[in-house]
Protein backbone atom coordinates (compact mmCIF):
# COMPACT_ATOMS: atom_id res chain seq x y z
CA UNK A 1 0.00 0.00 0.00
CA UNK A 2 1.26 3.39 -0.95
CA UNK A 3 2.23 5.94 1.69
CA UNK A 4 0.57 9.31 1.21
CA UNK A 5 1.62 12.52 2.81
CA UNK A 6 -1.48 14.55 2.96
CA UNK A 7 -0.23 17.05 5.54
CA UNK A 8 -1.32 20.43 4.02
CA UNK A 9 1.51 22.61 5.47
CA UNK A 10 4.41 20.52 4.43
CA UNK A 11 7.53 22.45 3.22
CA UNK A 12 8.72 21.57 -0.29
CA UNK A 13 12.40 20.93 -0.36
CA UNK A 14 15.04 20.25 -3.00
CA UNK A 15 18.04 18.05 -2.63
CA UNK A 16 21.43 19.69 -2.17
CA UNK A 17 22.68 18.14 -5.40
CA UNK A 18 19.66 19.56 -7.27
CA UNK A 19 20.35 22.97 -5.75
CA UNK A 20 23.98 22.80 -6.85
CA UNK A 21 22.94 21.81 -10.36
CA UNK A 22 20.54 24.76 -10.37
CA UNK A 23 23.32 27.10 -9.31
CA UNK A 24 25.66 25.79 -11.99
CA UNK A 25 22.93 26.24 -14.59
CA UNK A 26 22.38 29.80 -13.38
CA UNK A 27 26.09 30.47 -13.72
CA UNK A 28 26.05 29.60 -17.41
CA UNK A 29 24.45 32.84 -18.71
CA UNK A 30 26.93 35.15 -16.89
CA UNK A 31 29.83 33.06 -18.12
CA UNK A 32 28.61 33.13 -21.71
CA UNK A 33 27.90 36.88 -21.45
CA UNK A 34 31.37 37.33 -20.09
CA UNK A 35 32.92 35.44 -23.00
CA UNK A 36 30.90 37.48 -25.50
CA UNK A 37 31.76 40.81 -23.85
CA UNK A 38 35.39 39.85 -23.62
CA UNK A 39 35.40 39.20 -27.37
CA UNK A 40 33.62 42.53 -27.99
CA UNK A 41 36.20 44.34 -25.83
CA UNK A 42 39.07 42.77 -27.78
CA UNK A 43 37.48 43.87 -31.03
CA UNK A 44 37.10 47.43 -29.76
CA UNK A 45 40.67 47.56 -28.49
CA UNK A 46 41.96 46.22 -31.81
CA UNK A 47 39.98 48.84 -33.71
CA UNK A 48 41.30 51.65 -31.53
CA UNK A 49 44.82 50.26 -31.82
CA UNK A 50 44.66 50.27 -35.63
CA UNK A 51 42.79 53.61 -35.96
CA UNK A 52 45.25 55.50 -33.77
CA UNK A 53 48.35 53.37 -34.34
CA UNK A 54 50.55 56.40 -35.10
CA UNK A 55 50.02 58.11 -31.75
CA UNK A 56 49.96 54.90 -29.76
CA UNK A 57 53.17 53.63 -31.37
CA UNK A 58 54.92 56.96 -30.87
CA UNK A 59 54.32 56.83 -27.14
CA UNK A 60 54.56 53.00 -26.91
CA UNK A 61 51.07 52.62 -25.52
CA UNK A 62 49.63 49.11 -25.55
CA UNK A 63 45.89 49.16 -24.99
CA UNK A 64 44.50 46.41 -22.81
CA UNK A 65 41.09 45.26 -21.64
CA UNK A 66 41.62 47.23 -18.46
CA UNK A 67 39.86 50.41 -19.55
CA UNK A 68 40.83 52.52 -16.54
CA UNK A 69 44.48 51.65 -17.11
CA UNK A 70 44.06 52.69 -20.77
CA UNK A 71 42.62 56.02 -19.66
CA UNK A 72 45.53 56.54 -17.27
CA UNK A 73 48.00 55.77 -20.06
CA UNK A 74 46.34 58.22 -22.45
CA UNK A 75 46.29 60.90 -19.76
CA UNK A 76 50.04 60.32 -19.32
CA UNK A 77 50.51 60.57 -23.10
CA UNK A 78 48.50 63.79 -23.12
CA UNK A 79 50.67 65.39 -20.46
CA UNK A 80 53.89 64.23 -22.19
CA UNK A 81 52.52 65.56 -25.48
CA UNK A 82 51.62 68.94 -23.94
CA UNK A 83 55.15 69.21 -22.54
CA UNK A 84 56.58 68.34 -25.95
CA UNK A 85 54.41 70.99 -27.60
CA UNK A 86 55.56 73.59 -25.08
CA UNK A 87 59.21 72.67 -25.54
CA UNK A 88 58.88 72.71 -29.34
CA UNK A 89 57.15 76.09 -29.13
CA UNK A 90 60.03 77.48 -27.07
CA UNK A 91 62.59 76.01 -29.50
CA UNK A 92 60.73 77.32 -32.55
CA UNK A 93 60.52 80.78 -30.97
CA UNK A 94 64.25 80.68 -30.22
CA UNK A 95 64.98 79.56 -33.77
CA UNK A 96 62.74 82.25 -35.24
CA UNK A 97 64.47 84.89 -33.12
CA UNK A 98 67.84 83.52 -34.28
CA UNK A 99 66.77 83.49 -37.93
CA UNK A 100 65.41 87.02 -37.62
CA UNK A 101 68.75 88.21 -36.27
CA UNK A 102 70.56 86.22 -38.93
CA UNK A 103 68.43 87.82 -41.64
CA UNK A 104 69.28 91.28 -40.37
CA UNK A 105 72.97 90.38 -40.44
CA UNK A 106 72.73 88.88 -43.96
CA UNK A 107 70.85 91.92 -45.27
CA UNK A 108 73.52 94.17 -43.86
CA UNK A 109 76.25 91.92 -45.25
CA UNK A 110 74.80 92.35 -48.75
CA UNK A 111 75.05 96.11 -48.36
CA UNK A 112 78.60 95.77 -47.03
CA UNK A 113 79.69 93.50 -49.89
CA UNK A 114 78.06 95.86 -52.32
CA UNK A 115 80.20 98.71 -50.93
CA UNK A 116 83.45 96.79 -51.12
CA UNK A 117 82.85 95.32 -54.58
CA UNK A 118 84.70 98.44 -55.62
CA UNK A 119 88.41 97.76 -55.08
CA UNK A 120 89.10 101.44 -54.47
CA UNK A 121 87.35 101.45 -51.15
CA UNK A 122 88.90 100.79 -47.74
CA UNK A 123 86.95 100.13 -44.59
CA UNK A 124 87.66 102.57 -41.84
CA UNK A 125 85.00 101.95 -39.22
CA UNK A 126 82.12 99.56 -38.84
CA UNK A 127 79.62 99.35 -36.03
CA UNK A 128 76.87 96.82 -36.49
CA UNK A 129 74.04 96.08 -34.12
CA UNK A 130 70.65 94.47 -34.64
CA UNK A 131 68.99 97.87 -34.98
CA UNK A 132 71.40 99.82 -37.14
CA UNK A 133 74.89 99.93 -38.59
CA UNK A 134 77.39 102.62 -39.30
CA UNK A 135 80.09 102.13 -41.91
CA UNK A 136 82.82 104.61 -42.65
CA UNK A 137 85.13 104.05 -45.55
CA UNK A 138 87.61 105.76 -47.81
CA UNK A 139 87.33 105.87 -51.54
CA UNK A 140 90.03 106.76 -53.99
CA UNK A 141 88.71 107.53 -57.46
CA UNK A 142 88.70 109.93 -60.33
CA UNK A 143 84.90 109.95 -60.41
CA UNK A 144 82.66 112.58 -59.03
CA UNK A 145 80.90 111.86 -55.70
CA UNK A 146 79.33 108.41 -55.99
CA UNK A 147 75.66 107.89 -55.39
CA UNK A 148 75.57 104.13 -55.71
CA UNK A 149 73.72 103.31 -52.50
CA UNK A 150 70.16 103.68 -53.63
CA UNK A 151 68.50 101.93 -50.75
CA UNK A 152 65.74 103.21 -48.50
CA UNK A 153 67.48 101.76 -45.44
CA UNK A 154 70.79 103.39 -46.26
CA UNK A 155 71.75 107.01 -45.98
CA UNK A 156 75.19 108.10 -47.14
CA UNK A 157 77.04 111.28 -46.32
CA UNK A 158 80.39 112.54 -47.54
CA UNK A 159 82.64 113.32 -44.58
CA UNK A 160 85.53 114.86 -46.45
CA UNK A 161 87.14 115.12 -49.87
CA UNK A 162 90.76 115.68 -50.70
CA UNK A 163 92.41 116.12 -54.04
CA UNK A 164 95.31 113.77 -54.78
CA UNK A 165 97.88 113.89 -57.57
CA UNK A 166 96.98 112.78 -61.11
CA UNK A 167 93.36 113.82 -60.79
CA UNK A 168 92.49 111.34 -58.04
CA UNK A 169 90.22 112.18 -55.13
CA UNK A 170 90.29 110.75 -51.63
CA UNK A 171 86.85 110.80 -50.13
CA UNK A 172 85.58 109.55 -46.82
CA UNK A 173 81.97 108.39 -46.60
CA UNK A 174 79.73 107.61 -43.70
CA UNK A 175 76.93 105.18 -44.34
CA UNK A 176 74.07 104.68 -41.93
CA UNK A 177 72.05 101.53 -42.30
CA UNK A 178 68.74 100.89 -40.56
CA UNK A 179 67.91 97.23 -40.01
CA UNK A 180 64.40 96.14 -40.96
CA UNK A 181 62.68 93.26 -39.20
CA UNK A 182 60.60 90.52 -40.83
Amino acid at each position, binding site marked *: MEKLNIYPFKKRKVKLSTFLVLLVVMLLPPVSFNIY*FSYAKEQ*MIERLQSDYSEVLR*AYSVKLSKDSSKNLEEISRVESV*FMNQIKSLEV*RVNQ*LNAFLDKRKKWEDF*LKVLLNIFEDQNRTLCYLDFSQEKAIVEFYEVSKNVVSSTFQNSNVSTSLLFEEKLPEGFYLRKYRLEYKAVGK
Partner: protein
Amino acid sequence: MRGINRKFAIWFAVLTLLVLVFGLVVLDFVIFMSNTKKLEQKLQNLAPAFKVFTLKQREYEEIIKTIMSTPEFQYNFTEKEISVEEVEDLLKELAETRRVTVKTLTIDAKRVIPINFFGTPISQPSVKITLELERVKQ
Protein backbone atom coordinates in the same frame (compact mmCIF):
# COMPACT_ATOMS: atom_id res chain seq x y z
CA MET B 1 13.21 15.04 4.56
CA ARG B 2 16.58 16.74 4.54
CA GLY B 3 17.33 19.39 1.87
CA ILE B 4 16.97 23.07 1.04
CA ASN B 5 13.75 24.95 0.94
CA ARG B 6 12.64 24.97 -2.70
CA LYS B 7 11.50 28.58 -2.74
CA PHE B 8 14.72 29.69 -1.17
CA ALA B 9 16.75 27.60 -3.64
CA ILE B 10 14.99 29.11 -6.64
CA TRP B 11 15.20 32.68 -5.39
CA PHE B 12 18.82 32.24 -4.44
CA ALA B 13 19.69 30.83 -7.87
CA VAL B 14 17.75 33.58 -9.69
CA LEU B 15 19.28 36.33 -7.59
CA THR B 16 22.75 34.87 -8.10
CA LEU B 17 22.10 34.95 -11.82
CA LEU B 18 20.87 38.53 -11.73
CA VAL B 19 23.73 39.72 -9.51
CA LEU B 20 26.32 38.05 -11.70
CA VAL B 21 24.81 39.26 -14.96
CA PHE B 22 23.86 42.82 -14.05
CA GLY B 23 26.13 43.44 -11.08
CA LEU B 24 29.34 42.14 -12.55
CA VAL B 25 29.37 41.26 -16.23
CA VAL B 26 27.09 43.93 -17.67
CA LEU B 27 28.25 46.60 -15.23
CA ASP B 28 31.87 45.85 -16.09
CA PHE B 29 31.06 46.10 -19.78
CA VAL B 30 29.14 49.35 -19.32
CA ILE B 31 32.11 50.84 -17.43
CA PHE B 32 34.44 49.56 -20.15
CA MET B 33 32.28 51.13 -22.85
CA SER B 34 32.12 54.45 -21.04
CA ASN B 35 35.90 54.52 -20.47
CA THR B 36 36.57 53.43 -24.04
CA LYS B 37 34.34 56.22 -25.33
CA LYS B 38 36.32 58.74 -23.27
CA LEU B 39 39.55 57.16 -24.49
CA GLU B 40 38.46 57.40 -28.11
CA GLN B 41 37.46 61.03 -27.60
CA LYS B 42 40.90 61.78 -26.21
CA LEU B 43 42.60 59.90 -29.04
CA GLN B 44 40.44 61.74 -31.58
CA ASN B 45 41.68 65.04 -30.18
CA LEU B 46 45.24 63.83 -29.86
CA ALA B 47 45.69 62.28 -33.32
CA PRO B 48 45.40 65.42 -35.51
CA ALA B 49 47.37 67.48 -32.99
CA PHE B 50 50.05 64.82 -33.02
CA LYS B 51 50.19 64.91 -36.83
CA VAL B 52 50.64 68.69 -36.84
CA PHE B 53 53.19 68.38 -34.05
CA THR B 54 55.30 65.81 -35.94
CA LEU B 55 55.15 67.95 -39.08
CA LYS B 56 56.30 71.03 -37.15
CA GLN B 57 58.99 69.01 -35.42
CA ARG B 58 60.26 67.66 -38.75
CA GLU B 59 60.22 71.18 -40.19
CA TYR B 60 62.20 72.42 -37.18
CA GLU B 61 64.71 69.58 -37.52
CA GLU B 62 65.13 70.28 -41.23
CA ILE B 63 65.93 73.94 -40.53
CA ILE B 64 68.39 72.96 -37.79
CA LYS B 65 69.95 70.39 -40.15
CA THR B 66 70.30 73.03 -42.88
CA ILE B 67 71.93 75.42 -40.43
CA MET B 68 74.23 72.70 -39.11
CA SER B 69 75.28 71.73 -42.63
CA THR B 70 77.05 75.09 -42.93
CA PRO B 71 80.69 75.26 -41.80
CA GLU B 72 81.63 75.40 -38.13
CA PHE B 73 82.54 78.86 -36.92
CA GLN B 74 86.07 78.82 -35.54
CA TYR B 75 86.59 82.25 -34.06
CA ASN B 76 85.99 82.60 -30.36
CA PHE B 77 86.65 86.02 -28.93
CA THR B 78 84.85 89.13 -27.82
CA GLU B 79 87.54 91.76 -28.24
CA LYS B 80 90.82 91.51 -30.09
CA GLU B 81 93.30 93.22 -32.36
CA ILE B 82 93.67 91.33 -35.61
CA SER B 83 95.18 91.99 -38.99
CA VAL B 84 93.21 93.32 -41.94
CA GLU B 85 93.53 89.96 -43.71
CA GLU B 86 92.10 88.24 -40.67
CA VAL B 87 89.19 90.68 -40.67
CA GLU B 88 88.49 89.68 -44.26
CA ASP B 89 88.59 85.97 -43.31
CA LEU B 90 86.34 86.62 -40.35
CA LEU B 91 83.77 88.43 -42.45
CA LYS B 92 83.89 85.66 -45.04
CA GLU B 93 83.31 83.04 -42.37
CA LEU B 94 80.50 85.04 -40.86
CA ALA B 95 78.88 85.17 -44.28
CA GLU B 96 79.35 81.44 -44.98
CA THR B 97 78.27 79.91 -41.71
CA ARG B 98 74.73 80.01 -40.47
CA ARG B 99 75.54 78.46 -37.14
CA VAL B 100 76.06 81.88 -35.64
CA THR B 101 74.57 85.28 -36.05
CA VAL B 102 76.18 88.59 -35.27
CA LYS B 103 74.58 90.55 -32.48
CA THR B 104 77.13 93.33 -32.50
CA LEU B 105 80.28 93.86 -34.50
CA THR B 106 82.64 96.77 -34.32
CA ILE B 107 85.65 97.09 -36.55
CA ASP B 108 87.71 100.08 -35.62
CA ALA B 109 90.27 100.79 -38.32
CA LYS B 110 90.33 104.52 -37.90
CA ARG B 111 94.09 104.52 -37.93
CA VAL B 112 94.07 103.03 -41.43
CA ILE B 113 95.58 105.37 -43.98
CA PRO B 114 93.93 104.15 -47.15
CA ILE B 115 96.56 105.26 -49.61
CA ASN B 116 100.10 106.37 -49.73
CA PHE B 117 101.10 109.32 -51.80
CA PHE B 118 101.31 107.25 -54.98
CA GLY B 119 97.63 106.40 -54.75
CA THR B 120 98.01 102.70 -53.90
CA PRO B 121 96.09 101.16 -51.03
CA ILE B 122 98.07 100.10 -47.99
CA SER B 123 96.87 98.07 -45.04
CA GLN B 124 97.34 98.64 -41.39
CA PRO B 125 98.87 95.78 -39.38
CA SER B 126 96.08 95.42 -36.84
CA VAL B 127 92.50 96.44 -36.43
CA LYS B 128 90.54 96.53 -33.21
CA ILE B 129 87.52 94.32 -33.39
CA THR B 130 84.66 93.64 -31.00
CA LEU B 131 82.33 90.79 -31.78
CA GLU B 132 79.29 89.46 -29.99
CA LEU B 133 77.78 86.35 -31.45
CA GLU B 134 74.75 84.21 -30.90
CA ARG B 135 74.98 80.52 -31.64
CA VAL B 136 72.07 78.42 -32.75
CA LYS B 137 70.74 76.21 -29.96
CA GLN B 138 69.89 72.64 -30.79
